[in-house]
């Protein structure tokens, strides 16, 4: 779950020109906040079940820096707050107080290499390393996780193409990634489709996204051997979302995103919202 949240935030935070690597010496930096609160979750059979309201608030920094014209260094780090609501009983029984836990989350570092760039087409590959810097057993019962405690490696291929429809220019992006997870977690496939266009005198970029995460079900981690972790393994989800980016200048922009789960397994069922400020230098 935590890893999913992290990846979601990364995906939602990524610069829209991700398939076009940074120029040498240039950078793109973004700080943002990502929020999800859920009183439902998808079970392992995909059914929706209720739960006591839990929330995640992630404040993050995302940066890309062009090591060369073809090679970009990407970093993502975040501070995560996990909380659970208190419980008040209709019978008048004593209330149970809520709980909050916060810590540094897992850090992602990746390198993106431009494989091809011809006219309106760009293809790149990236290797992401997920460092287990978060807490995988936070809170009173160990379920307030800010990290999954595993070192994962994700190999991703990205394809981007711009194309016109009439006078309007659009961008299309897709990516596929294989996330190799350790410590008994199942490996995963990640797919993403995205399209965007600029409007309002090219000040406003509007994006639509569909991304999915599928487990290979090859891990050994389960409730039997995992000490009470929520959403321990075999997390799956398909999200539909959108983003609006308003560029005040060529260097400075703000963005707002929303993402809605369409289906899932072992994951919260609730929309996620985020907002951020980006600077391109």
């Amino acid at each position, binding site marked *: 779950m935590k890893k999913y949240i992290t990846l979601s935030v990364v995906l939602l935070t990524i610069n829209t020109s991700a398939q076009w690597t940074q120029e040498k010496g240039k950078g793109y930096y973004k700080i943002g906040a990502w929020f999800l*609160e859920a009183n439902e979750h998808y079970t392992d059979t995909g059914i929706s079940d209720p739960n006591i309201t839990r929330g995640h608030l992630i404040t993050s920094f995302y940066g890309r820096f062009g090591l060369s014209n073809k090679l970009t260094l990407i970093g993502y780090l975040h501070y995560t707050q996990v909380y659970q609501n208190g419980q008040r009983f*209709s019978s008048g029984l004593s209330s149970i107080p809520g709980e909050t836990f916060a810590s540094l989350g897992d850090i992602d570092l990746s390198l993106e290499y431009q494989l091809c760039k011809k006219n309106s087409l760009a293809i790149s590959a990236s290797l992401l390393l997920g460092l287990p810097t978060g807490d995988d057993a936070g809170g009173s019962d160990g379920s307030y996780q800010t990290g999954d405690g595993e070192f994962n490696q994700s190999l991703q291929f990205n394809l981007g193409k711009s194309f016109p429809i009439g006078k309007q220019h659009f961008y299309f992006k897709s990516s596929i990634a294989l996330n190799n997870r350790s410590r008994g977690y199942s490996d995963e496939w990640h797919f993403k489709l995205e399209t965007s266009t600029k409007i309002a005198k090219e000040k406003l970029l509007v994006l639509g996204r569909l991304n999915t995460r599928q487990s290979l079900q090859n891990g050994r981690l389960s409730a039997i051997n995992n000490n009470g972790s929520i959403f321990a393994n075999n997390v799956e989800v398909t999200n539909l979302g959108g983003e609006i980016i308003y560029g005040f200048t060529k260097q400075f922009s*703000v963005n707002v995103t929303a993402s809605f789960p369409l289906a899932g397994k072992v994951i919260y069922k609730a929309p996620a919202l985020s907002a951020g400020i980006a600077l391109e230098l």
Partner: protein
Amino acid sequence: MKKTASLLVCFLLLLSCVGEDLINDYVDPDLRISNPIVSINEGFQYQFKARFFDESGTKVAEPALVWQANPPTLATISQNGILETLAAGQVTVSVQTTGLQGNVVEAKLSFAVTAVAKTEVSDTTTATTDTTTSTSDTVSSSTTDTATTTTDTASSTSNNTTSTTTDTASSTTNTSTATTETTTSTSDTETTNTDTSTTDTATSTTDTSTTTAETATSTSDITTGGDSSGGSGVVIAPQFYEGEIISTSGYILEGNFRYEHNGTQITLSLDESYRASTSLPGLYLYLGNNPNTVNGAVEIGKVAVFNGAHEYILPPSIELTDYKYIIYWCKPFSVPVGEGTIF
């Protein structure tokens, strides 16, 4: 511009305030007779106990109980729950109290009051000679059968019994013969019994009238085929319950259970049909009286077996009727995911 961005971030931060969920934990109030019986001999007393659990499943310390026994010609019960049986037949004991919302809550228990054979003579005979003792055994056995099954037709049956006994007794002693008469007259009226006995030996008669019940009890026990009374004249209800664990969530959780007091402790056994999803996070087992919450429930432990037969040995402080539900609880989400109703 910067102000707008700052407001956006602040808005998200505000969203993360810890709130409070309202949990509807209502359950029907439950009044239960905690030491039910199957049968009791006539002339015996038994202390009934009742426990009351309110609309939250919380045990009420000293509920105001109103006891009643029906029909009153067969048994009476005090407001402390002490039953006194008067005659054989089917008796229903009911107990009532008032719930927090003013509603009357009631529990009922029906059981048999068993007739007791009048075997004062057995004692008398026993006190006589060894030979007579064996005779009296015969008499006692026959008499008991008669008394238990044919109260209304005691006369004719008694005659048969008498003749049988007489055959045996006549070859022994005079006292035995008297025994036979006594047995016969016992079927008729107790007064006759006393009179007859008095004719034999006044001293032993007095003793007999006191000890009759005890003798009859043991005789009755044997006739019943062995009960759990241990000679107390009361057959306690079976000390186990069986049922099914069902999922109350989207997770797989199922199986059959047996909840049993083996004399020293309670065991909860799940059979081979049991299985639970291994994706269930933080799954714990509780016993409680409200399946909607584990407030007031006792935690048995973290679930470590997800497939097949296994057993939990419960703490000795737990009594068989203390808890109504087996609750499977997802701790991280604070939600029930499965339950079994014990009784």
